[in-house]
Every structure is written in structure tokens, then in C-alpha cells.
């Protein structure tokens, strides 16, 4: 028979090394704060069900923003109110993981009210722990949507009134009115009995997720001795006598036993499915017969910038289309003003044979500037030894930098000679391909027909590309 000991759960770190300062043995919570009790109940359940290692804990903004100091699990800290959105992403990408969205009442019911409604409505297979302490704890005791009528906070110094602030929002009731959630309960942590009931609810919420039952929501009435200006025992008493009178405890919905487990793999973007989604399976392209030797280490960060309508964003997309067919990792993100045409636009493209962390390009290895404001704006950002390719038909100044490769191209002039100024971006694509070691001209010429499906369009674009390619090769010689 094994020895029964109740003590610090192995789902917590031994020492809280992520916590700054000298005190790494205690949590950062105030004495008597309910967050700690709930953390313990969650940790115990994760360990008992053998899923601690496989869990992802999403910390909110609020006093529990630092929950990742403590849980020996996967941890993500989400923007205020967005924990359900982050949890959605994690759960969909990793359906086997146990995902916990842990949120306070300011976080969940105020700024994140929209996020939680839609995550619940979609029936995301996650477990939400909603800590209702009727106040904003972290920021110093402001009114929360759950603050009681008459309750004094720093922003309701005379007490919350119906006329000014409306009724406290009862989230468990609201969530339970949606179709998708499988389990909604409100518990409190105010004495031995209620903590035991909370413990059961926590376990049920996590077990539901293990059994792939869908969205579970556990609202926990929890002490905030600091915000309430009470001792810890008084705070528990106030939950019993007052808070729970306004937020009735109980199971609001439980259909977990009646629903079939979800098939969470159904819509998973597996490596096998992605090429199909991107249309890559139809090209049937194999580049083993490529004439060009791609550079061994490709790590290009390209910024393309110009007026809207110059094909800035398209050029970026083509680069990523080409990169994908060269088996590179690629990313593309656009950045443009609200205007459809005429405003400035730029896009960030990364091509690499390593995985890409962030799609943002702040220090381009190559800047493609298609108008003067773009050159002036981004010239400074280019890395030393990087290249600036610029349209010398439209830009009447030279780059000032001498530590970069300066490539003026009369792209608009060339495009005009071929018959359409709007294909200047294809000329620039040709130049890029000609002078670089990561854009195989043969691959480009196979990708162009996928982009320009009409024959006459394809013809002039191939011409523009060819012209650019020649120029690009000359630069290299």
C-alpha cells in the first residue's frame, strides 16, 4: 500500500525560476488569494489524470498573468481577454493536448466578452476556468462586470449603481444558454465543503476534455482579500453570505454524458493536406531537373514597397509561390493603408530553408522599392551588404547608402516598351531571379503560367520576366 501524502503537486515547478527577484518559493499572489487554491486543484487534476505533461495552460491578463511561473506544463500568456482565441488555436493544432483557458472576470467578461462567447458557441474542446472575484485585482480594485450592486471599488466609490453601471453579468447563465457547451457549473471556494465541490468541478471539466466532449466552463467564486479590503477568512465569509447569493451556485448545464466524443482530427491541417489546400498538388512539378544550384543556406528577408496598384503585394505572393516549389519555407504578409489604389503598400516575404519564426521583415536583405517614398522610408533598414532594387524610371534619387548593392532598374520603362506599365513588377521579378541564387528561372517560368492563365497575358509577362532576367544576370557578371 502506498503512503498517502498531500503536498505540493509535481505539476508545479519545484522552485519558480521564472519569477523575478529573490522569492522564488512563494507564488506572487496576495495572502489568501483564491487563485492559489484553484491552481492547486487544477494541478492535482492534471497530475491525477496523467495529462500534466500534455497540457497547455493559457494565462490571461490579470493577477494570474504569471501562472506560467508555476505550472510545469505548456504555457502561453495571451493578450487581455484573448485566452479563448489562443486556446482555440492550440487545441486545433494539437488536438491531443489538454488546453486550459484560465481567466479573471475583467479578462473574460469585460474586454474578452466577445472571445469567450464565440469560443463557447463554437464548442471548442477546451476547459475554461473563470475566476469571478467581482473586481479587477491586478490593476488595484476597479469595478468588474461582476461587481455587485452597491459594491465599492475604486471606480465605483459610492458603490455600483444600476443606473450607472447596470447589473452584474452572470456568465455561467449566459454560457449555459448557448447550444454547444457541454458542461457549465458555478462553484465557490469559501470553506471545506465548497472547495471540495470546486475540486470535483475542476476534475470534471478536465475529464470532459480528455474524453473529447467539447466546451466546459467552470465559474469559480474566488477571494480577493486585497481588492475587497478584508482578511482572508472574512473574504471567504463574504463569498458565502453575499457573493454566492448574487451568483447562485450549481450545475447550469451538463450534457457531457449524452454527447459523442468529437472528431478533432477532422479539420487538422496535416502536412499531407496542406499542399492540396495550396493547390501545389496540381502542378505536379518536380525540380530535380533544375538547371540551377540553389544556395545551400537561404535566409532571405525581402521587403517590397510601392504604390497600391503597382503589384507590390502580388510580387510578394509570387516569390512565396516560387519558394514553395523550391521546397523552401516561406511567409508573406501584406501591409497597406486603407485605400484600395494610390496609397502606399508593402509586403514582407521570407524565404528560408529553416523554419520561419516571425513573418515580419524589419531588416531586409533585399529591398524592392517601386516608388520614391518607399526607397526613402526603408533604405535605412536594409542590412549591410544587402541589395536595393529600385525602379529608376519612377525614382529620381539614388540610394545614399554605399554599403549595399545598388541595383537601379528602369522597370516601368521596360514594361511600357513591352506594352503595359503594370507588368513592371514582373520585370523586377526577372531581375531578382537573374542576380540571386535562390530563385531558379526555370521554376519561375513554370510558376508564371499558374498565375497568368490567359494566353496573351502570359506571353507579355514571360517577355517582361525574360528581359528582367537578362538584366539581373548582367549585374552578376
Amino acid at each position, binding site marked *: 500500500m502506498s503512503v*498517502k501524502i498531500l503536498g505540493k503537486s509535481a505539476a508545479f515547478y519545484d522552485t519558480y525560476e521564472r519569477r523575478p527577484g529573490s522569492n522564488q518559493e*512563494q507564488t506572487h499572489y496576495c495572502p*489568501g488569494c483564491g487563485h492559489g487554491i484553484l491552481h492547486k486543484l487544477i494541478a492535482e487534476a492534471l497530475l491525477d489524470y496523467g495529462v500534466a505533461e500534455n497540457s497547455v495552460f493559457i494565462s490571461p491578463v490579470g493577477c494570474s498573468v504569471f501562472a506560467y511561473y508555476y505550472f510545469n506544463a505548456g504555457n502561453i500568456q495571451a493578450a487581455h481577454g484573448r485566452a479563448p482565441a489562443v486556446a482555440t488555436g492550440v487545441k486545433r493544432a494539437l488536438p491531443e493536448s489538454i488546453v486550459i483557458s484560465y481567466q479573471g472576470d475583467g479578462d473574460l467578461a469585460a474586454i474578452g466578452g466577445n472571445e469567450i462567447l464565440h469560443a463557447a458557441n463554437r464548442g471548442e474542446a477546451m476547459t475554461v476556468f473563470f475566476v469571478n472575484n467581482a473586481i479587477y485585482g491586478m490593476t488595484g480594485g476597479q469595478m468588474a462586470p461582476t461587481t455587485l450592486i452597491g459594491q465599492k471599488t475604486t471606480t465605483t466609490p459610492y458603490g455600483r449603481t444600476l443606473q450607472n453601471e447596470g447589473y452584474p453579468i452572470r456568465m455561467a447563465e449566459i454560457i449555459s444558454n448557448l447550444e454547444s457547451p457541454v458542461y457549465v457549473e458555478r462553484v465557490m471556494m469559501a470553506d471545506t465543503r465548497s472547495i471540495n465541490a470546486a475540486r470535483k468541478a475542476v476534475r470534471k471539466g478536465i475529464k470532459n476534455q480528455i474524453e473529447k466532449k467539447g466546451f466546459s466552463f467552470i465559474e469559480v467564486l474566488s477571494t480577493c482579500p486585497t481588492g475587497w479590503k478584508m482578511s482572508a*477568512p472574512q473574504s471567504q465569509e463574504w463569498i458565502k453570505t453575499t457573493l454566492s447569493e448574487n451568483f447562485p451556485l450549481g450545475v447550469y448545464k451538463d450534457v457531457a454524458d449524452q454527447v459523442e466524443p468529437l472528431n478533432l482530427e477532422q479539420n487538422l491541417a496535416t502536412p499531407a493536406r496542406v499542399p492540396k489546400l495550396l493547390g501545389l498538388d496540381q502542378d505536379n512539378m518536380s525540380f530535380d531537373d533544375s538547371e540551377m544550384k540553389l544556395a545551400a543556406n537561404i535566409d532571405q528577408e525581402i521587403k517590397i514597397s510601392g504604390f497600391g496598384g503597382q503589384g507590390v503585394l502580388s510580387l510578394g505572393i509570387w516569390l512565396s509561390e516560387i519558394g514553395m516549389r523550391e521546397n523552401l519555407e516561406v511567409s508573406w504578409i501584406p501591409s497597406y493603408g486603407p485605400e484600395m489604389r494610390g496609397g502606399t503598400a508593402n509586403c514582407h516575404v521570407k524565404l528560408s530553408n529553416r523554419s520561419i519564426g516571425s513573418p515580419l521583415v524589419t531588416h531586409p536583405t533585399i529591398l524592392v522599392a517601386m516608388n520614391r517614398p518607399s526607397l526613402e522610408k526603408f533604405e535605412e533598414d536594409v542590412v549591410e551588404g544587402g541589395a536595393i532594387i529600385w525602379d529608376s524610371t519612377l525614382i529620381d534619387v539614388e540610394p545614399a547608402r554605399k554599403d549595399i548593392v545598388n541595383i537601379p532598374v528602369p522597370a516601368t520603362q521596360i514594361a511600357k516598351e513591352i506594352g503595359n506599365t503594370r507588368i513592371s513588377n514582373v520585370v523586377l521579378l526577372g531581375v531578382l531571379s537573374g542576380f540571386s541564387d535562390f530563385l531558379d528561372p526555370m521554376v519561375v517560368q513554370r510558376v508564371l503560367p499558374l498565375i497568368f492563365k490567359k494566353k496573351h497575358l502570359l506571353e507579355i509577362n514571360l517577355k517582361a520576366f525574360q528581359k528582367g532576367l537578362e538584366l539581373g544576370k548582367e549585374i552578376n557578371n
Partner: protein
Amino acid sequence: MAKARGLVAVNVEECKGCRLCVEACPVDVLHLTNTFNTHGYSPAEYDGEGCTGCGICYYACPEPGAITVYKNWAEAQEAYICQTKKVPSRLTVIDSVKGLAQCEACGQEVILSNFSNLSFAE
């Protein structure tokens, strides 16, 4: 009268003196001290006898590692495995208030709140 078969050990440095365990203990065997720990809190302490091992204080306490409850001390003390010699041993309480015991095999002091570093026979 409930049977005193348990043993509670407070980790003084993890305690924040919130009093929730003191209020929760059904047999009233915990109290707050008048001293301070290094973080400036007056920690809880065991009266030294009477713990039933019910575990209520463990769940009442917000700090993950402040309270350790040996639900059945007699069983635990016999199942102890010496940390230095790695042999089956036996624990004797030397200070129940401070949660200190002694290992029979090596004679060394054992801090009972440090349970994750202790081992017991299955």
C-alpha cells in the same frame, strides 16, 4: 474525539500567514506564530498533536507547497527509505511542531514538509 493518525508539516518559508488553514482545521490544531519568515509573513504552525490527517488544511491553503499532510503517519514512518543509504528505514518524530523527524538508518534529520525529496516504499 477524532483519531490523531495524521501529521501536518508547514513549510514556514512558503507560508503567507493568511490563516485559512487555521480556520479550516476541524480539530483546531493549527495556529499562527508571532515570528516572521524571511518574506515577512507570520507563518502557521502545528500545535504538535491531534492532527487527524484529514487533509482539509491542504486544500484550504492557497500556496502550492506550504502544507504537507501525511494522512497516516504510522504507515509513512514505517515505509521510509533512507535517503543516504537507500535502504528501508524508519522515521521518528523529533519535533512535531516544526515537522522534523530522524532517520533511523543514518541518524540524519528529515524535514517532513520537503516530501517531494523523500521516498517511501510502495
